[in-house]
């Protein structure tokens, strides 16, 4: 299962955990699994998140692949100029 790192403000919606493990082969599946397992995270996910998967920042792609041993960091939705 992929290890998903939550920023501090989100941890209260996941029983205080800094890292949660969820199953999913894509970023979208990871988001869906997070919202299912920790419903308190759903508003943050719905508001739009970016992620970093194994070091690569992915702004808004639900289809980006995630491996079972991937390290995923949630980030606020990034904007550029």
């Amino acid at each position, binding site marked *: 299962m992929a290890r998903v*790192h939550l*920023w*501090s*403000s989100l941890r209260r919606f996941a029983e205080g955990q800094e890292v949660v493990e969820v199953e999913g082969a894509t970023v979208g599946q990871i988001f869906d699994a997070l919202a299912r397992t920790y419903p308190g995270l759903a*508003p*943050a996910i719905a*508001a739009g998140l970016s992620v*970093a*998967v*194994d*070091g*690569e*920042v*992915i*702004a*808004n*792609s639900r*289809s*980006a692949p995630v491996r079972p041993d991937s*390290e995923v*960091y949630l*980030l*606020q*939705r*990034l*904007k*550029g*100029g």
Partner: protein
Amino acid sequence: MAKDEITKGYKLVGTRPNRPDGLDKVTGRARYGADFSLPGMLWAAVVRSPHAHAKIKRIDATKALALDGVKAVVTRADLPTGLEGEDLNLQENTLAGEKALYDGHAVAAVAATSALLAQDAARLIEVEYEVIPHVTDVDAAMQPGAPVIREGAADYSVPEGMHPNVVRHMEFGHGDVVAGFAAADIVREETYKTEATHQGYIEPHACVGQMGEDGRGEMWVCTQGHWYIRRMCAAVLGIEAANLRVTPSEIGGGFGGKTTIFMEPLALALSKKAGGRPVKLVMSRAEVLRATGPTASASMDVKIGMKKDGTVTAGQVMFRMQGGAFVGMSPIGEALPCAFACYDIPALKHEAVEVLTNRPKAAAYRAPGSPMAAFAVESLMDEMCRELGLDPIDVRLKNAAKEGSKSSYGPVYNRIGLVETLEAAKAHPNYAIPLGPNQGRGVASGFWFNHGGETSVSLAIGEDGTVQVSIGTPDIGGSRASIALMTAETLGIPYENVRVNVVETGALGVNEPTHGSRATFASGKAAVEAARQAIKEMCRRAAAEWEIEPEAVEWKDGAAQPAGPNAGKFPPMTIAEIGAKMGGTGGPISGHHETNAGGVGASFGTHVVDVEVDPETGRTTVLRYLVVQDAGTAIHPAYVEGQYQGGAAQGIGWALNEEYVYGADGRLQNTVFLDYRIPVASDLPMIDTVIVEVPNPGHPYGVRGVGETGITPPLPALAGAVAAAAGVRLRSLPMSPPKVLAAIKAARQA
């Protein structure tokens, strides 16, 4: 040096051919937003609130509509209701509803048969306001008793007990900061402030909108992203996206400020009310400064622990940022990850809040949030280096993030080029030039993520073997040239045989704007894939002609060729020959690629600046300026250098002069370029550039975006240089002559 890593051998990538838009621009033929006109066109003017915060009691357009030649007036009552989230924000900013939220907020708009008549009519529209208390400063807006701008606007992230103007909160970090600070030899903590600045694009917002009573329309507009214009106008007006066709003009600068809408729906709404006559709407400079999105202003606490040898043991930031009266507009989500992104530090804590104020709706501005964050963190790094007598580049090298480092925002970095920029800066002659009296040198590094995003590109082979590429990312900084170079390199044909066109919304799938330094990266990557697709088809056509298997044909030097001796002996079939015959060999040949482009490579940079401060006037003169930045691969080096110089110039303006000045009444005081002081050519030296190339493995030619990182280091680099030259440290931007002089005098008196 990283130059050694480049897999060169390119024929075209890395050369400096003439820019494809050059002749049109120097002869005045290029058509910008305000250059479009149509038969029967009307002109629009906008009524704007003179108050920073006011309830709108009544709007009466009777006198305006009575004028001969006035064809339509729109107010918020003409727009659909029921919008939510960012769509509601966009609508609320397009036309105020119950309240005017900032000085310059649009309240009504009018269309008439001439621009002067429209302006006269706007003055006849009567608006009755009830002025209510306002707040424009980010720190003041959080204080008890500060006027509440929007009740209940805070989102899920805000802890209980904060002021209602605090609408977003973010916190993250890693390691044990308490232990980290305990392990340091010195720990310093300071507060830094930056004022809001405008992108300062030379071309004001301009559009022509046409919409019939059937809800079908067209728009010609100056924008960084016409699909965004389409989506946002459709949302604000309640129409179907496919019913609006948007064509972008040439663009006279955007820097993030033209990735959204400000007045475009007004032209469409007025057109619809005026029976479908097209409506032109062009902002004045004062409207641009009062009512389009500047960047956020910031108030930032930074704490850093450092050992005597320069090793950073821990860092901590608390950022307060305002993005106007609209939720989600301040760049806290970008500023925090950028704050310590240049460093590999074992313990970090980041926290930020977004605060509402009675200011215009902020927009993206070149590496949103990163320049402010760099000003705070890099300034304190500089102060501590000076206190410990350490070379600032050596300290940065000692702590620099590199491949395999855990980034400040969590993930481990892939291949990045910060160390290479630091080494190149240290080796540059500028770093060794002796300084005279009242002169000082500053150094800072900076970072930007870069972006890929939604991209759709088409490519068509012509009957003579020339190629047209259709892209959806407006060309702000040379992307047509760089995409033509990559396409020509891939196809093996001359640069001059490729024409790249920025096409309208009906011609391609959805494209994100030219933002996030993505155009050369993402549209370029898609163009290369489209070219490869066309090559595959051209090889297939040649194979059919030769009656051999397609796999036995390869593409080389702009022609299909037998892949080896077993394929048979055939003379190369050039792209021109294939194009000339394609009608009879299967029809048109094209390539197409759609993607949400991944493989983005971050870009780091290091700047060195020398200044002289006049102790009698406080005026800072920039003596020399050096930009060193990782481009991955510089497809067209002249354009890359231009991006570096442009970023530095904007950063110099932000550091030394630019600021939004609000009066006690909440009105913006400096609404023209005479008073809002951007740097002009005579303010700047020739900006030296060094292109470092650490290729990005996620792009076929190694491209990293280069547009944004360059604005990040100038703020702290200038602050360090001024501190060294004047003997006083300014922690609040801009370092304008009156502020520098006051600081010098205060230091003398102390």
